[in-house]
């Protein structure tokens, strides 16, 4: 996993509540047993006037020139609710998104983000409104700095606000650690737990 420490990027607003993972990537866009090739399907139901011909809808935020190359998505509460499909995160990531700002996230989606090195940042709706209102509308004025080390978002002439990411996740992202490798370091604890649990709940391991 690629570490995330500090980066600057264009922020694109998609301020709707309850954007579900079916909307982020419709099931029909998950065409292969792969984590790749998914960015074309990102928001496919909204992004294209004609999905089959991939004819872009110029009204959709990501199709507007000001948001070209956006790497930060600002969105509404409960973003990523619904289906557990990790493809939603893979599609956002492949498109270029590295951080998502929202008042809240679907729980499975949020875990999937951390596990793939995409940073979900919880920000109150009014703080997000202020931030977006502060940024200018010209292409060069949509820039935001995400600083995970100091847990701060910064923009303009020194404006900023603090955010918080659980410490375990922050460490994981800053170092680009693989969660499975990290967990395997607790191998002795896991073995000891299973040995003792097997005596307490034998039917879990063998139906008898």
């Amino acid at each position, binding site marked *: 996993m690629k570490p995330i420490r500090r980066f600057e990027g264009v922020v694109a607003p998609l301020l*709707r509540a309850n954007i579900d993972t079916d909307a982020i990537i419709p099931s029909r866009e998950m065409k292969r*047993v792969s984590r790749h090739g998914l960015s074309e399907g990102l928001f496919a139901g909204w992004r294209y006037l004609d999905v089959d011909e991939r004819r872009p809808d110029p009204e959709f935020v990501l199709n507007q020139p000001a948001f070209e190359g956006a790497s930060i998505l600002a969105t509404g509460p*409960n973003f990523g609710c619904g289906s557990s499909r990790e493809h939603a995160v893979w599609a956002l990531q492949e498109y270029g998104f590295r951080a998502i700002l929202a008042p809240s996230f679907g729980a*499975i989606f949020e*875990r999937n983000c951390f596990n793939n090195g995409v940073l979900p940042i919880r920000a109150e709706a009014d703080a997000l409104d202020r931030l977006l209102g502060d940024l200018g509308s010209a292409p060069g004025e949509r820039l935001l700095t995400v600083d995970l080390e100091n847990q701060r978002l910064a923009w303009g002439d020194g404006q900023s606000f603090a955010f918080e990411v659980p410490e375990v996740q922050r460490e994981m992202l800053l170092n680009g650690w693989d969660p*499975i490798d990290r967990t395997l370091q607790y191998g002795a604890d896991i073995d000891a737990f299973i040995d003792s649990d097997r005596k307490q*709940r034998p039917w*879990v391991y063998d139906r008898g």
Partner: protein
Amino acid sequence: MARTLFDKLWDLHEIRPLDEGESLLAIDRVFLHERTGSIALTTMAEEGRSVRDPKRVFCTMDHIVDTFPGRGDETLMPGGTAFILATREAARNAGIQLFDIGDPRQGIMHVVSPELGIALPGLTVVCPDSHSCTLGGIGALAWGIGSTEAQHAMVTGTLRVSRPRNMRVRFTGPRPPDVTAKDMILHLIGRHGADGGSGYAVEFCGEAISDLSVEERLTLCNMAVEFSAFTGLVAPDERTIDWCRGRPYAPGPDLQQAAEAHWRELVSDPEAVYDRQIEVDARQIRPSVTWGTSPQHTVALDGQVPDPASVGNPDTRAAMERALAYMDLAPGTAMADVAIDAAFIGSCTNARLSDLRQAAHWLQGRRVAQGVRAVVVPGSSTVKREAEAEGLDRIFEAAGFEWRESGCSMCLYAGGETFGPGARVVSSTNRNFEGRQGPGTRTHLASPLTVVASACAGRLRAADWPEAVSA
């Protein structure tokens, strides 16, 4: 210290804390399907890792597989066969049990796992599928995860989990005889919002919950994720224990007594403290249906499409307007005046034997209205066989329903089968999101009983036969 059921399940599985609020939990069962399990298995193999204990990992074909009679590996969904073949090969290489196409045990994962006794009270069960919370209905601690976490669970036998808070939802009073578990959960989400359970493990209790059959509890907990809960739970009771007894993977004779004694301890202490409590008067619940594109867009069947203009919050109003435009409905329209094009019974929510019995019971001697396409897809191959043994298939077919093989089918559109753009479907499924059942398809979530009643009326309609509920 007094503990909730959730606290007890957490403590039983906690290997060690990792940091404030996060622990390493032992995972007792992993269940996969060909849609998201395939990538977990293939990535695991590519990374040179293997399953720690293959006996405790299972896989089924449900999401992509066709449900037409005589189906094989070919799928209507473009490219679907590749998922099926990849899953079959990866499951074989991983040494895990696969319930393949043609296997008499095949079916929708959340129907199959309790039916076979793979999910049991007190077990932690995870699947790369958001409706894993279904299994809370028998008192398992079960939740949906991503494919990467599925790989983590298979390889390490554990997961890193942030501890959710405790919520109790108490349904007081007896429910009216025509109200099903589906109506109860839709009512709750309608009242408290699609994110009302966010950050919580939700325990359902109260008279109207104890009164539910085990299968109804599975229906109730199935939609805990539509409430944005980490999971839903109902404490196991004698009904649960009887229901689990003798299932193929349930504890055998030597261990049955010890297991059942353990399950009887899985209840919240009377003094246990919850972070949030909700009371719902079950007597006030009426058969319900969704009007919009979120499960919180719920209304009673004798109610009307709500008016966004009556809502103060501009974001909520905008979302309602968007939903009405997608659903092609006008505020103030009586739900009973909404004409439908299709009726669907299926999914991990409402396609168990008791659902099919109840629907068929009402349907006996009636006909689906002209112009309405009606489909019933049993939740598992076992459910299908049992339903056929009782003659339910003949009742459905005589009424004009198509009778299918088991799978997720049209609960979700994956590029294959759909009722079509603009089609209005009354559906026993769990998600009414835009495009969920196909581009432009309009979904009204309801109970199987409402689905059959609506199919016959050609319009959204509650069943006028309350005795049917106790089937």
